[in-house]
């Protein structure tokens, strides 16, 4: 079977998965108890008139139509790229609400993921290469130890200690309040400075996983026949390390990386809340609290598509890299 047919079959599977996800996406919010008007009303905790509940129902235009009708309408709107109107941020369209956070989330969580992946894989590969050396003795247990901290606690400790008490880093927002967003060096510097601490906490929390995966895969590969053959032929160690060992050991990490890329858009919920970072995670929380079906659907849709998309790309990459995947 040729790689193209293989790829085509995979894409078909992805389409099926997308449809199932979209349908679940439609059903799940509707299975939650209560209705959005009630949820909005409840948020005021008696500060608004009970009569407001009626006006909220009218405002939100809640539909009593049968589920099947709503489902057809939902698919039609999706086909036109319409995600509807957010209820919590009424009357803002869902796409605009998601637009406020998506870029920052991709920047922060995506950046942290790439750094963590590159750094972790490098450390893991080096640790395995010099098995029993100081790096191999210190890095995996130390990083696993750091990764085992409850993330929320670690992020708050970092925000408090490094950001607040020592004042080395800004403790909130994606860029400084005095900086205007735009393509200026000042803005880029400010954005980087603001991403450093939250990004670093995410890297510290996830680094251990990448190190262990890479180290284990590397150990297996280093014990394989091709590497011994290469060593027996007297190839320089640097060449063996880069061209033969890493390339093969990277495959399992690459799969995890693809999965992780997809989940980047779901937002680093805790990071964003602790550092008041304007991203997707906080929106998701708001949407669940406010039973904001359209916003929930929009967010899940971006997450679903990102996960599926990233997996499709990784699949294609693996097919290109690994001859065994082509059969």
């Amino acid at each position, binding site marked *: 079977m040729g790689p193209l047919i293989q790829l085509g079959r995979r894409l078909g599977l992805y389409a099926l998965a997308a449809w199932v996800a979209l349908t679940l996406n439609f059903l799940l919010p509707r299975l939650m108890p209560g209705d959005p008007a009630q949820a909005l009303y409840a948020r005021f905790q008696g500060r608004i008139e009970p009569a407001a509940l009626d006006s909220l129902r009218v405002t939100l235009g809640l539909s009593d139509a049968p589920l099947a009708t709503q489902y057809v309408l939902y698919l039609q709107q999706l086909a036109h790229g319409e995600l509807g109107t957010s209820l919590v941020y009424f009357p803002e369209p869902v796409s605009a609400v998601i637009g406020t956070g998506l870029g920052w989330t991709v920047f922060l969580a995506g950046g942290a993921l790439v750094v963590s992946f590159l750094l972790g894989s490098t450390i893991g590969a080096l640790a395995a290469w010099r098995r029993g050396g100081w790096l191999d003795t210190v890095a995996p247990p130390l990083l696993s130890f750091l990764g085992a901290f409850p993330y929320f606690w670690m992020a708050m400790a970092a925000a408090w200690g490094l950001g607040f008490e020592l004042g080395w880093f800004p403790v909130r927002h994606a860029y400084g309040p005095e900086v205007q967003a735009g393509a200026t060096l000042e803005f880029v510097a400010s954005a980087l400075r603001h991403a450093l601490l939250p990004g670093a906490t995410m890297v510290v929390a996830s680094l251990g996983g990448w190190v262990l995966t890479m180290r284990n895969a590397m150990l297996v590969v280093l014990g394989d026949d091709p590497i011994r053959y290469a060593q027996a032929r007297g190839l320089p160690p640097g060449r063996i390390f880069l061209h033969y060992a890493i390339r093969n050991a990277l495959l399992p990490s690459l799969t995890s990386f693809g999965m992780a890329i997809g989940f980047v858009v779901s937002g680093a919920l805790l990071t964003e*809340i602790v550092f008041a970072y304007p991203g997707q995670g906080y929106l998701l929380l708001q949407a669940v609290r406010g039973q904001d079906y359209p916003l929930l659907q929009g967010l899940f849709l971006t997450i679903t598509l990102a996960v599926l998309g990233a997996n499709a790309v990784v699949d294609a990459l693996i097919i290109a890299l690994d001859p065994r995947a082509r059969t």
Partner: protein
Amino acid sequence: MILALGLLACADPVAPVPPGTMTVLQEQQAAWVRNFNPLLSTGGARWPTSAGIYEPLLIYNRATGEFVPWLASSYRWTDPARVLEFTVRPDVRWSDGQPFTADDVAWTLNLLKRFPALDAAGLWTFVQSVEAPDAHTVQITFTRAYSPGLALVAHQPIVPRHVWEAVADPVAFANPDPVGTGPFTEIVRFDPQVWELGKNPYYWQPGVPAVDTLRFPAVASNDQALLALIDGEVDWAGSFVPAIARTYVSRDPEHRGYWFPAVSDTVFLYPQTTAAPLNDARVRKALSLAIDRDLLVKVAMHDYAVPSHPSALSDGYRSWRVEPPSDTWVRQDPQAAAALLDEAGYKIGADGHRHGLDGAPLELPILCPAGWSDWVRAAQTIGHDLDAIGIHAPLQGLDFGTWFDRVSRGDFALTLGWSVSGPTPYAFYRGLLGSGTVKPVGEPAPSNWQRYSSPAADALLTRFEATDDTAEQHALSASLQAVFADEAPAIPLFPTPAWGEYNTTRITGFPTAEDPYATLSPNTVPDALFVLTRVRPRSAN
């Protein structure tokens, strides 16, 4: 890489806040969404849209118990409690320079009739017609005598006809560039993480506002709000702060302060009164007598709250409360509680538990939204107190949506809950005792979750609606308080404090316990307008 490190290494340029700028923390949002529609009932508009950019006709001042003339210079009833006449100020202008007239008021109120989605206060459930006979007079005719309607009409934000007339669908209108009469109307800057509101060049109060710009940084959590407060970055906030004297004030006692008056809604333990044993007032009173409220406010509310008054009215209704109260059913007295339960027939069995009339041991689970740590602690304290009189009352924490759904449908035995508030005790007692708010069990009810109605209270409430005489309203309120304490439809625990913090390093003039011209909390709307028009930069002292 080196460039990036170089950029990061250079000191963080902390630009000083321009003088005359007041930083306010009121809403908790991760990113701001530009919406300044004051008529939306969804709460989607940014604070202070409804009372700051736009303004009401009158503002009820809870500190003094009086209506303060605002866009209207005066009001009177031309037909008692039925026809209301406002005289609007002649010198008010919209922020685009156009004059504000009675026609704007009439047009706004009539807009709510055309778009019920905007009628958050339900004005058109009792208003018959609104007219502006001349440029300074608005006449509002009610369908029946309904004096509580005054506060609802008076607090309605008014929008300019000449702008809103052109808006095809005001319900879906985000009003990105508002034109209002309020002290602050100009959007100086709007970014997802910070926005700034400048002053109205045409504001009608001379020399007001003294502050040039309000700044709103987006802060998503209480922890972040706390950091910003401690840092001294914020001038005015309405957050809950634990151990505030130590965490916040002690860092600069000269400038920092807080004031948490017990004026917000009262937190109740609601019994579902349609089923035994909670359909018996003696049982409900026994539960109330079992609770140690002094301990409760210490454990659950960090000692910021005070035990409820027997009338359940918070300090926001101080002028309405009968002192001293006739009944002390909110003070702990386990012996009296036990006697009431014995009298009602719920005797202690051999197992040490009280048993129902059907012989089964009494078990009354207390519902509470999981994660509301203050309420969870309150429910645990109550459960402990009820155990002491032989009633098992385990805490049942639920997801917020599930909790509210069950409570509003009447599917519970006991639950914690908030209450309805308004300028007079009318709406408060109507939600506790009035038959008009009772919905059948299974149907969601916005208030009166306990599903209790009292014929005695109904008669008093009807008389309250029919009179615009304040003295008579006070007399009726006194009778309502007696009915409430007698029938015990719900068990009052403590009034919620109105959280408010200030920092006078840059801005002064905030209300305090010593100068209570308004509530300090920015969360109490429209009272926040009193503060917005009083505060001034320190240099301008």
